[in-house]
């Protein structure tokens, strides 16, 4: 054993700075690539996004000088009714997705927590559904939900009048939300199933010995065990709702009229169809803020629960 190590172990001064010792002890350099990537691909674009939202940027000056206009974009965006309507629609989508992911996700996960060939097959199909590009599944649903599509034909066969799934101003938002919920379900089933499998068997057995029935065991024993997982799933679901754009783009493009203009659709149309870059950036930042407002309390609550 060298004298240097001996001195260090004794906590005596070694002639090296505290930083050097820290760097020597922890493999902090391993983080450099990750920090670099994060800075380059997340932090820097975020800074540009904020700068864009505080400037007047259009096609004529996207390359060149951006004139600083302060909070004018935010004033304009927030004083337009459309963003509040878009926010309300997005929250509606999030609520439906939360209900679907929790209720159907839990039921599906409970059923699929039993092993066997059927379970494996169903899980394989669910992974396939989850991995389908939205443009593919969205196009398929657009065909299925057309006024003269297979679903309406089936309804017609049993004497039910055709439904304008994607073109009714009252239904379109919920039809597309249903498609999004369908696409999101496999993920929630897989996540909840993973958590279910991790619930200690002896807990469930103890509940059974105490005379708890199936549902009581599920609600009083299993669900509390899943709370941290469900908290994270809730956050991911809200995030998913606030970034869901593909299915709207494929099926309705924000229509009929403006009835499916959610925040991401509004941001896309403003920035990339109308080329109002700074307004689009502002809507995106408002969207981020809305997500943070929903997500942070959840995260704090989960943290509080986990603290001893």
């Amino acid at each position, binding site marked *: 054993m060298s004298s240097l190590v001996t001195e260090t172990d004794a906590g005596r001064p070694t002639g090296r700075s505290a930083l050097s010792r820290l760097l020597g002890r922890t493999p902090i350099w391993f983080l450099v690539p990750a920090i670099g990537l994060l800075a380059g691909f997340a932090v820097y674009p975020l800074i540009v996004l904020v700068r864009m939202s505080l400037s007047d940027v259009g096609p004529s000056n996207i390359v060149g000088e951006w004139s600083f206009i302060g909070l004018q974009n935010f004033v304009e965006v927030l004083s337009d009714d459309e963003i509040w309507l878009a926010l309300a629609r997005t929250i509606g989508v999030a609520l439906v997705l939360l209900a679907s992911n929790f209720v159907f996700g839990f039921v599906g996960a409970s059923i699929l927590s039993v092993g066997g060939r059927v379970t494996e097959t169903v899980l394989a199909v669910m992974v396939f559904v989850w991995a389908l590009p939205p443009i593919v599944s969205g196009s398929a649903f657009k065909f299925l939900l057309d006024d003269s599509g297979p679903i309406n034909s089936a309804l017609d066969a049993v004497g039910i009048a055709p439904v304008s799934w994607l073109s009714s101003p009252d239904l379109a938002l919920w039809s597309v939300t249903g498609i999004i919920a369908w696409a999101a379900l496999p993920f929630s089933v897989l996540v909840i199933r993973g958590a279910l499998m991790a619930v200690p068997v002896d807990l469930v057995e103890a509940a059974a010995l105490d005379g708890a029935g199936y549902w009581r065991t599920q609600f009083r024993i299993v669900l509390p065990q899943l709370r941290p997982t469900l908290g994270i799933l809730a956050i991911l679901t809200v995030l998913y709702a606030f970034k869901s754009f593909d299915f709207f783009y494929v099926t309705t493009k924000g229509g009929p009229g403006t009835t499916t203009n959610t925040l991401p659709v509004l941001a896309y149309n403003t920035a990339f169809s*109308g080329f*109002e870059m700074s307004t689009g950036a502002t809507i995106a930042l408002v969207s981020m803020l809305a997500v943070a407002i929903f*997500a942070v309390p959840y995260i704090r609550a989960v943290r509080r629960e986990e603290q001893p």
Partner: protein
Amino acid sequence: MHSTRARRGGALLLTAGLAFGLSACAISDGTSGGGGGGDDKTLTFWSYYQGTQADWLAAQAEEFEKNNPGVKIDIVKTVGDQQDQKLLASVATGDTPDLFINNIVVDYPTLVAGGVTADLSEYWDDFADKDQFSESATWTTDDKVYNLLPFTNLIGLYYNQDILSEVGIDSPPTTLDELQADLEIVKAHGQYEGIALSGAPTVEGAWLFAPQLLGQGIDYCSFEGPEVDAAFDRVETWAKAGYTPQATATWDQNDSWQQFATGEYAFGINGNWQLGNAAEAEFEWGTTQYPAPEGGTSVVYPGGEGFGIGANSDKKDLAWKFLEEAVLTPEAGESIFTIAGSIPVRADVAELPAIKDNAQVQPFVAAAQTSGSWPKNENTANIQKALGEAVSSVISGQTSAADASAAAIADIKAAIEDGGGGCS
């Protein structure tokens, strides 16, 4: 404790990252394959042509390469919806292609404002055949030519002759009132649908609605008055009577063509690019010009792809040579008509028997002679989006005709002002 902190930090980062993802691509760069450097004899051509139009371009490029040994045309396939964004980004990255097509309906003012397009005035002034082209073939700003439209696409009225004969309509309508009367007859018959058209809340919905006013001299620059209210009233009447199904509120032009092609619809509004597809229909069909509004004439907006040269291209002379030899010639005009159904703007090509003797093409050729003028405003896309949303909202029943008309008038005016106020 540490794991909780880490989880919280991770979740927050994820939150920021995903939400940011909404708009991060606003500043993404263009695709590879720009024309700023590289091989001196390779021209990069960004194209979103598909199907027969892509076949035509590939054939023209091949012919040009054969006639110009050592030159290569590198056609980079792009996505139409994203062409503008990528071209704007390409200026920032110095990766602008040597040649590109663009959707003149929405792209031209944006691309000129963004400094993407090269000034073609000198090339055009020296072009020997320029007299063969009408004024509408050149797209100019401040008296400089930036874009060329050698072929055009226009919309017209397709009709299912079998249905018309069965319900007792002798001839296709020439006015909107006649069309409405015919739709009433078709609907009363009970077996067929009325008219398939695009009412999407996009540029497409606006493009199909605008001719109801253009023929009365009302365009985006003068979008107000009782005529506008009346046009929205008509849309509402057709929607409530079921002449246009509610689903048209989200149909694009391809959707509406597929519906017309089923043979269930008496009429369909669509473009000349569907002529090739119409030839495969299993029913008798015909075409006529977009029905004129009462007291007016049939006027539609010209559409199609403009051809431009990248402002940053260092091979502009070679790029112009390609346009001159492979795009602007009579042979190119005839071949794109034959292969893809596009209407050539060249006067001598329009006189070719293949076009002149084709009764189904003639309504589109006639429309090309009287087409309307797009507003010269960099906010053209938003101007049309405002109209498309208003039309879609009326068809779907989201808003009344009066509300939609008022909203469209206000939004279009605001969009024009926001785009610098320039219009005609």
